């Protein structure tokens, strides 16, 4: 793509009614940023489309969107069709962040109801991007507790739960560290699964009274719940392409988990 920002129409004739070409361009940029933030935070295609449409409605412009996993494309024009603006934006690496989804959803309604200006929207988006995540220790402890709960639900004993807790803690820690060092995302999941099942497998092999449930549930913190559920909701909604892309992504993640689990089982000859 030689230009990713093309302006057509009567920009040269100066100010027309409503929006100027510059306004349209700025609005398009903001809308694209909102769209890519939604995509990387784990929204399905319908949510991205309705949110962008809602904000466009407030500004009395019409927008057309092309939504894909790795890039978003927008064409925006005002009601008189005097100004057009098209641009394309690549999405950053995906990481589920529901606080972002919630914040953008609330913002889009306030834009419509309270008539926010573009500057207010940009400020709010900046604020949402800067919002902190939970403390790392809180995440580690709560996800490990979730792993132990899984173990209990599948019929594990208290001892199994303890093993799963430790395995999940170690696996998630390694995953966070590898993500920080910018490894390939599937490789990060592989490392996490390998370490978690290595810990659980070690206890299963050498410990007394540990059942298989501990090993089976130690890698469950990695299950690609959001990609798979979003995949089906996109497919149901008719966004077949996005649905397929998301399901293949989910399958790749499952494959990485299986590979880590396999390697650990090979190590201990389970």
């Amino acid at each position: 793509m030689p230009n990713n920002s093309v302006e057509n129409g009567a920009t040269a004739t100066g100010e027309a009614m409503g929006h100027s070409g510059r306004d349209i361009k700025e609005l398009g940029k903001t809308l694209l940023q909102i769209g890519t933030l939604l995509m990387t935070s784990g929204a399905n295609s319908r949510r991205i489309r309705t949110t962008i449409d809602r904000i466009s409605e407030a500004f009395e412009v019409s927008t057309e969107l092309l939504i894909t996993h790795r890039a978003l494309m927008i064409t925006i024009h005002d009601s008189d069709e005097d100004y057009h603006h098209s641009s394309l934006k690549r999405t950053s690496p995906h990481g589920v962040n529901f606080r972002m989804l919630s914040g953008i959803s609330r913002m889009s309604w306030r834009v419509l109801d309270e008539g926010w200006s573009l500057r207010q929207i940009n400020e709010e988006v900046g604020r949402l991007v800067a919002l902190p995540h939970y403390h790392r220790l809180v995440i580690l402890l709560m996800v490990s507790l979730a792993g132990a709960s899984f173990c209990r639900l599948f019929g594990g004993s208290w001892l199994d739960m303890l093993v799963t807790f430790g395995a999940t803690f170690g696996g998630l820690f390694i995953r966070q560290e590898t993500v920080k060092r910018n490894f390939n995302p599937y490789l990060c999941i592989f490392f996490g699964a390998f370490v978690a099942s290595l810990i659980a497998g070690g206890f299963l092999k050498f410990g007394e009274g540990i059942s298989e449930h501990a090993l089976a549930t130690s890698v469950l913190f990695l299950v690609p719940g959001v990609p798979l559920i979003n995949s089906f909701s996109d497919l149901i909604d008719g966004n077949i392409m996005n649905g397929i892309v998301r399901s293949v992504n989910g399958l790749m993640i499952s494959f990485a988990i299986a590979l880590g689990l396999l390697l650990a089982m090979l190590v201990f000859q389970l």
Partner: protein
Amino acid sequence: MEYLSLIEKGIWFGLAAIGFAILFNVPTRTILVIWFMGALGGITKLICMHIGFGVVMSSFAGAGLIGFLSIWAAHSKHSPPMIFAIPSVIPMVPGAFAYRMMLGLIKLAGDQIGEDYDTIVAETINNGLKAIFILMSLAFGVALPMLLTRKESAKDIRLKKIMG
């Protein structure tokens, strides 16, 4: 079925849901609701399985309940429904079936074809299909209220109207 063990399982379902909620960085105000929804969905699934619905339809029932509760939660906590629904259904994700399918596949790819090869094939296919169908029913159950009401946003859904 004992009520006490049912309640205990509900607590674990809720905790598993919260763990994922924290991993997905949900707003703090939604956590307690997610715990309740995860617990209620899980208990619904267990009760349905006890009645004899089968694991796929039971998961669908649990996910459907979570789907409807998520609309209510979205109204009262001012967040989109999926923020409540996705962490709540994750404890029902068929991890055990997927794990057994994977073990089966490894055995099938082994060096020799043993006498029990047919049994392993049957078990692997059974576990794999269950995993896929449960996943589909979870996604469908969560989307159910939006599909039934044919609305673009949960904000337009009036729960009282649906309930009569």
